[in-house]
């Protein structure tokens, strides 16, 4: 009898178990069905992309880089049992190409995220907000110059300008490093990452700076400084945790755009080029009014996965805004 009472008391009366703010945010995120769907899709996309060389044979699909056994009937064939998404203009399996394209997109978003978002965006934002003075002015003016440039246009100009020069670099890499035949894809990849990063940091560093400015004035930062904590310690232990939520919101909202810029550049023939798979080149094969009328699967199979990818990131960003900043302050 008493044991039962104690148990009911424990179940009803005890206060909710204490959870860290991060765990609480994750719980309320999972309570949103749309956000859940987005997370599931992104997990599948990232998983398939990262492990493409394992996933493709596991699904029983032929590798897109093997073109030895092609017949004319296999070219631009519609979806069938053997090729669930159909085949492309060279008779390669579209489903396998989609998975390998996901690999390109996934790697690209991760590289730009780490360099542009994390190091430059977060780092410069923290630095500008915490140090203030001329450091702040300089960083923000540089940001102003970059955001003043017409982004896509400059990315076009840069990638077109360096494109002719990188051939030498590709051959050098091929002859002198272990990369071999992969060097072409890697150098092209680095080039588009290089032209995307200068535009990827501004948004997040502005958000981080604004938040840092307000945290810097708070009592606990002053207390830490009075106790003799160094700049590094104050930034990492006291400022950074407060900045993190807003930074995540900005980041997840920007990921779709980052992925989109790779697709756009590759579509125009200035990014990743064949034979390396990319959604941009795949869409380029099917994007034409006549091409779409005759072979709709070329465009749909190439475009739909990446549209959903961008959509999922946008939805996730939207859900995070609601959770991490319930009363949003519009600047």
């Amino acid at each position: 009898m008493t044991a039962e009472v104690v148990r009911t008391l424990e179940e009803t009366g005890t206060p909710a178990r204490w959870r860290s703010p991060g765990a609480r945010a994750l719980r309320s995120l999972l309570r949103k069905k749309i956000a859940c769907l987005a997370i599931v899709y992104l997990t599948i996309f990232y998983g398939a992309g990262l492990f493409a060389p394992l996933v493709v044979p596991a699904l029983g699909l032929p590798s897109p880089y093997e073109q030895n056994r092609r017949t004319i009937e296999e070219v631009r064939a519609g979806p069938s049992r053997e090729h669930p998404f159909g085949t492309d203009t060279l008779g390669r399996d579209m489903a396998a190409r989609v998975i390998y394209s996901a690999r390109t997109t996934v790697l690209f978003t991760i590289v730009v995220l780490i360099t542009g978002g994390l190091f430059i965006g977060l780092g410069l934002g923290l630095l500008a907000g915490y140090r203030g003075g001329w450091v702040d002015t300089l960083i923000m003016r540089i940001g102003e110059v970059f955001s003043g440039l017409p982004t896509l246009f400059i990315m076009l100009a840069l990638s077109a300008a360096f494109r002719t020069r990188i051939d030498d670099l590709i051959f050098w890499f091929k002859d002198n490093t272990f990369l071999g035949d992969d060097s072409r894809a890697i150098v092209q990849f680095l080039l588009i990452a290089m032209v995307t990063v200068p535009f990827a940091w501004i948004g997040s560093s502005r958000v981080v700076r604004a938040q840092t400015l307000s945290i810097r004035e708070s009592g606990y930062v002053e207390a830490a400084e009075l106790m003799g904590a160094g700049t590094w310690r104050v930034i990492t232990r006291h400022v950074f945790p407060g900045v993190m939520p807003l930074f995540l919101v900005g980041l997840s909202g920007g990921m779709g755009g980052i992925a989109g810029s790779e697709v756009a550049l590759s579509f125009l023939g200035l990014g990743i080029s064949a034979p390396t798979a990319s959604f941009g080149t795949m869409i380029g094969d099917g994007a034409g009014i006549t091409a779409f009328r005759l072979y709709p699967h070329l465009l749909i199979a190439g475009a739909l996965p990446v549209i959903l990818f961008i959509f999922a990131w946008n939805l996730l960003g939207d859900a995070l805004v609601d959770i991490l900043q319930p009363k949003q302050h519009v600047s």
Partner: protein
Amino acid sequence: MGAGLTGYTIRRILWAVPVLFVISFVVFWILRLAPGDPVDALLGQRFDEERAANLRHKYGYDKPVVEQYVIYMRNLAQGDMGVSTRHVDFSVSEVIWPKIKVSSQLGAMALIIVFSLGIPIGIYAALARGTFLDPLTIGCWLLLDAIPAFVLAPVVGWLVALKLGWITLGWEGVWTDGPIFRPESNVIVYVLIMSLPGVAGVARFMRASFISVMDEDYVRTARAKGLKQSTIIITHITRNAMMPMITVIGLSLPAITAGALFVERAFGIPGIGAESLAAVTAPDFDVILGLVLFGSFLFVVANIVIDISYGFIDPRVKVGGQRG
């Protein structure tokens, strides 16, 4: 406010000058850095050293980069934007102004659609907060936002031109010649493709702004006074929620002239987007520079105008105060 605002305006304009100089020099230098130059593109198969040298001398590409830049800037100050090499010996102004005219008309129409749809949708979503209609509305527009223009263009083109036969494919000018002054029907389709993906951003921003105003004390007061719901929404909330929208509207103004590269490419519209892609890949130095400078100039001006207009619209805003 008077003296402070004037001083602030002057400071901002003075800042804009070095910003534009830096942009122009960086672009100028990057273009010269690349190995392929317009002369290679012009001669192509007929390349021989003597003709190349002659052409380089003619366009001044044989001089040091800094000297070329000084010459370019001196000419620019006199209103001469240089010559195009791709459109042989046409001046840059002759090449870009007609295209800017086309692009800016389409862009202005697109912008009007974006804001006249985005603002009501944002208000609707904010009022529906807490129900499933809010995420559903925003979600639908976010899906449109995720579709790249180069995917949407062929699909819509196939649907309305080939399947339904509503429009013809081909450029027939912006306005109809007919008795009623209206845009060509295919222009309407192009403008819709350009504008619909942008609605989500405006709607989201308007929603956030509307929600933050909705919780203000004066809104509660208005409600307690027994004002009609429609009066509260229109005069109390929307008017105040529009304040931050000024920034968004201002920042999208330069996009009007930037041209919609992918839509222009897909439908053969003679605008800035298609021209800039061609100029970049050719390459055509002076046209690229002209376009970049024009775009950056508009952006910088729009930024200054937004900041200053805040001071006029909302007297509480102190421009040039502690903003770092």
